[in-house]
């Protein structure tokens, strides 16, 4: 085989390896949220300014639980299916216009979006999301995402850790 032929074969091999890697790559659009420093909201609410508090809450009631089947890797490398019980995120909205406090509740993400759209008719100066420790990550991400999607002020996240505060 001539030298030119060998180079062509090597190019071939390189392309095969490249295509192999591309085919096994896990190509998924991903992004990230930069999490701001944790801020406790307790005692910091000033009634003279507009603030919207979005509490992500859960309950222990059976009807407020979601059962998700997940596949996990067993130590021997085999896949096993396991159920995970996840509380469904509910949203408790509290907002202040001057000293006047108003509240509403949203039972799911769709209702939250609707209520945020309604509230966004007023200028909102500050938003804080307060996730309960038991709430799933998805609930907080959804609330944060809707705020940004609707062009509302960047929400603060109350990530204060209960055990450390006491």
């Amino acid at each position, binding site marked *: 085989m001539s030298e030119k032929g060998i180079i062509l074969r090597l190019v071939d091999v390189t392309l095969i390896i490249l295509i192999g890697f591309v085919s096994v790559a896990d190509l998924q659009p991903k992004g990230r949220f930069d999490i701001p420093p944790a801020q406790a909201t307790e005692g910091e609410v000033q009634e003279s300014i507009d603030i919207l508090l979005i509490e992500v809450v859960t309950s222990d009631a059976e009807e407020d639980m979601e059962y998700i089947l997940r596949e996990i890797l067993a130590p021997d490398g085999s896949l096993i299916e396991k159920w995970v019980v996840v509380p469904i995120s509910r949203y408790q909205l509290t907002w202040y216009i001057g000293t006047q406090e108003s509240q509403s509740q949203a039972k799911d993400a769709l209702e939250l979006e609707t209520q945020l759209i309604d509230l966004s008719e007023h200028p909102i100066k500050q938003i804080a999301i307060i996730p309960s420790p038991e*709430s799933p990550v998805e609930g907080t991400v959804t609330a944060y995402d809707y705020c940004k999607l609707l062009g509302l002020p960047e929400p603060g996240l109350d990530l204060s850790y209960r055990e450390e505060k006491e």
Partner: protein
Amino acid sequence: MILRLVDIVLLVLFGFISVATIEDQKRIELADAHEVIEQQAQDRRMVTLTIDAWGDFFIEGNLNEASLEEVAHYLEMERNLAGTEEIVHVRIRADRAAKMENIKWIANLCDELDIEKSLVVKRITSE
């Protein structure tokens, strides 16, 4: 001739790989979001922590779960290795079903150690 054989071996190998089910190291489902920062954090010492649906921690894609003490020790070690010049950034790959309690714990630890943190989400492309 040898190169031809190498070709065939590679083709067969990648054929098998492409039809095989390639499992993620930890099968987690990321939360979905529209509004995300797409650019990578540059010039950072990156650390990846995975939290599965049951609240177990995994350091840098390791298959063995890590205790809270091990996670704390690892982040502290990374902080020390980075020194004062370099910024450490923790990518939190949390399952959408993981409890916020875990995120809060990590976030507070990162704040204590002066470490940046971000939550990895799956971007929804809105048409």
